[in-house]
């Protein structure tokens, strides 16, 4: 489809896009235009209508009202195929790749020119050319399961480019990437816009990145556009205010709590990952009352395994775990809950909640074993309802009531339910795994404040996070983890961003005394 696109031409225009779902208007008369050679970021909290808009632009959902123009012509997308034909590409946050296939096989999968006989040689030359042009560095023969999140994203982008995409929709492009990968991606994005491609990243958080790369920003709140401006005129706080509808505190008030006696003591703990390889290598540390120990690391360095072993979901192969001086290394997870441990898993939908259960039933996940809530094995539904209502109102979960199914909650609301449920047990020890990943600014702020509150109430907290800013702003001590080992454990006063970043990447730096 040879279309002559010049820099600054309007390539995509949306007029009055409206989409209603039962009980809510996901998109309410959205107007915007996207120009060639421009990065036009769409900002919004979870539930602001970003996902719906994105799906409409890519033909996955049909709008109730409104019109879309591509290169000045009115279009009706019946399915994503129509959108792809018109040069729109989408890079999903949930990767749509086949792990067992190689990079090149994934790229040509479903490509119109890939017939029954694949000309891999020619294809790989073409793809290599695209890579060279935009500065992507990837082994086309590698299997997708061997790739990091950032590389997988590159594959998705290549897939769209190879199909001739001129407009690229990027869903949370930086959320799963490690800092160096983000840098590389941004560099490639810059080259792409130089080539008159239009990029439309959809973003919930990481506002600074938005400010550094994008040309224009459209902010959505509750289905409506609240701001549309050139990035040059935007400030981080201003954007956050438009997104959330109120001022957001970016600097959290660190609370100083007198460090108490140790709650969790871990001695030479080792464990294997799902592939049977050593993922934790004789780790030792302790967490004290009123203390947050932050574990900083790039995903896949053993944090997940550590959390699971501590929570009783994975067997340790060696070492000891003491909770208040009692050995709980081999205790069941139920036993750990009853002994005052609380675990907030990173997999909110698959592990932390049950989608087909109501909120009340999800609250019960951490309460069903309490004698107070049942008589002779019969659950006291009234008490459970009351408890749920209390949690919903205290934590400001925006739902009709306790009977709402968990699967209909947004990520932020679901995390609030999980947090509320675990925190309401007043655990002595909290293991918190990626508590704010994928959450919008407002929900992130809320979660972080709740963690500080729990600290004030003398809980010991083990915070696992891939967001270095989060670790630095919340923790009292920081432990960078690399390949199943702590590189060091550093008191926050001595923690320097660069040192910790280097340690996360595997360099053993001694922190210079200050």
């Amino acid at each position, binding site marked *: 489809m040879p279309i002559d696109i010049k820099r600054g031409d309007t390539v995509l225009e949306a007029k009055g896009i409206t989409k209603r779902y039962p009980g809510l208007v996901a998109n309410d008369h959205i107007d915007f235009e996207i120009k060639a050679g421009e990065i036009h970021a769409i900002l919004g909290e979870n539930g602001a209508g970003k996902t719906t808009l994105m799906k409409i632009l890519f033909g996955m959902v049909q709008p109730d009202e409104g019109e879309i123009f591509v290169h000045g012509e009115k279009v009706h997308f019946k399915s994503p195929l129509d959108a792809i034909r018109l040069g729109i590409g989408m890079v999903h946050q949930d990767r749509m790749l086949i792990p067992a296939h190689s990079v090149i096989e994934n790229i040509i999968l479903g490509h119109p020119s890939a017939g029954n006989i694949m000309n891999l040689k020619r294809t790989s030359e073409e793809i290599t050319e695209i890579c060279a042009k935009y500065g992507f560095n990837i082994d086309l023969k590698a299997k997708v399961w061997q790739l990091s999140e950032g590389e997988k994203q590159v594959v998705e982008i290549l897939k769209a480019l190879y199909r001739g995409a001129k407009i690229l929709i990027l869903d949370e492009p930086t959320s799963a990437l490690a800092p160096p990968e983000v840098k590389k991606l941004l560099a490639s994005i810059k080259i792409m816009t130089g080539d008159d491609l239009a990029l439309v990243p959809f973003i919930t958080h990481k506002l600074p990145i938005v400010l550094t790369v994008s040309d224009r920003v459209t902010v959505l709140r509750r289905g409506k556009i609240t701001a549309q401006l050139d990035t040059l005129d935007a400030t981080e706080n201003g954007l956050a205010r438009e997104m959330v509808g109120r001022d957001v505190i970016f600097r959290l008030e660190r609370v100083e709590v007198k460090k108490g006696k140790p709650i969790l003591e871990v001695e030479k703990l080792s464990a294997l990952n799902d592939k049977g390889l050593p993922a934790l290598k004789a780790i030792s540390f302790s967490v004290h009352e009123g203390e947050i120990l932050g574990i900083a690391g790039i995903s896949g360095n053993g944090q997940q395994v550590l959390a699971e072993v501590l929570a009783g*979901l994975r067997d340790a192969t060696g070492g000891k775990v003491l909770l208040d001086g009692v050995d709980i290394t081999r205790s069941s*997870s139920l036993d750990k809950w009853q002994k005052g441990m609380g675990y907030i898993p990173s997999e909110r939908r698959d592990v932390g909640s*049950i989608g087909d*259960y109501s909120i009340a039933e999800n609250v019960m*996940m951490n309460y069903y074993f309490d004698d107070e809530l049942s008589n002779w094995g019969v*659950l006291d539904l009234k008490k459970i309802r009351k408890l749920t209502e209390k949690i919903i109102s205290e934590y400001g979960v925006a739902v009709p009531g306790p009977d709402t199914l968990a699967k209909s909650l947004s990520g932020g609301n679901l995390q609030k339910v999980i947090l509320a449920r675990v925190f309401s047990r007043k655990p002595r020890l909290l293991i918190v795994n990626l508590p704010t990943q994928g959450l919008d600014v407002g929900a992130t702020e809320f979660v972080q404040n709740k963690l500080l509150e729990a600290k004030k109430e003398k809980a010991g907290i083990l915070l696992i996070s891939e967001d270095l800013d989060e670790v630095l702003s919340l923790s009292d001590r920081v432990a960078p983890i690399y390949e199943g080992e702590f590189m060091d454990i550093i008191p926050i006063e001595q923690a320097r961003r660069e040192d910790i970043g280097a340690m996360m990447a595997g360099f053993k730096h001694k922190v210079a005394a200050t």
Partner: protein
Amino acid sequence: MKLGNYQVKLEKKLKVTGLEAAAISTLAIVIALALVSLIFLKAGVNPIIGYTKIFSYAFVNKFGLPLTINRSVFILLCTCAFIIPFRAGLWNIGMAGQLYAGGLGAFAVALAFGAKGPQNLDLSPGIIIPLMMAGAALGGALVGAIPGFLKGRFNTNEIVVTMMLNSIAFWLVAFMIKDGGLFMGAGGEGEGFKLPQSLYAPQIMGGPFTILIALALTGFLYFMFARTKTGYQIKAYGLSPSAARYAGISSYKIPLLVFIIAGLIAGLAGYHLFAAVPGVYKITQNYGDFGDLSFYGIICGLISLGNPLAAIPIALLFGGLTNGGRYVQGELQLGFGIDYALLGVLMITLVAFQFFFRYKIVWKKLAKEKKNV
């Protein structure tokens, strides 16, 4: 999709109410009957007469009705035995083997009290009948515990294990009742010994008391799933094993528990069939046919979506139709198995109509499209 001036769309439903489900299922039944009436027409039978005969024999006739009820109770118990693991996300395909074991358990108790003898033997039913039921429950539970244990401990596929056990239990029964087996009847016609009259199950309002037991069990299961801690844990495990593990629900105990209860109930179905249904009172030569009949429990369980109360009318319908269909086939001299045809079509429509449990069709009048150039 567009139809004239209307836009027709499918929308996902989050929840379906009991009333809606009942209405949708009734519609499915009506459509199945309408479809099968074509078969009647092809065979030269007026479908209205055909259906009148089927339903009046199954649900009104004084010979037909008791047969329907006994058969339905059997199907209902098998349905319960399917539903319990089903709610835990596990498939019990082994009701046949479990009910055979239940039959053996019941008759083992009877044998132990010397029941293998003349028909007028005077034994005390007050003690032996409860023990026979316990024996049946134990036999079924033991066979049920095997797949439960293997699933919980080694994550073995429960479908394979239960199906294999069906064969094992089938031949175990053959071993016991045929060719000089311990339970062989006096006549030696390849069937088990007959209970003496004193051990016939007591009748309540013309039917065996096992009807009440089946209804009570069904009610209990409903309550268990709706209100109890155990039910909550079973459902949680069924909906998301990983979330259940997170909540401290044992991934060993739940499979074991559900299969033990399932086996126990299937064992009672064996007791009902071989020791309580009037006119039987023995492990019959064609016991394998009843094993096959137990598979209706799977269908009923799936159609009722694991709701024990919803299973009652469905089991009754299936029991009635197998019974009435078989009767009408002889009565009208049809050359084919109308009961199987009817049940087959019914299963398909019931399952197909469950589409409407999850989706609804929305009609919307289209606005005249504006030209925009």
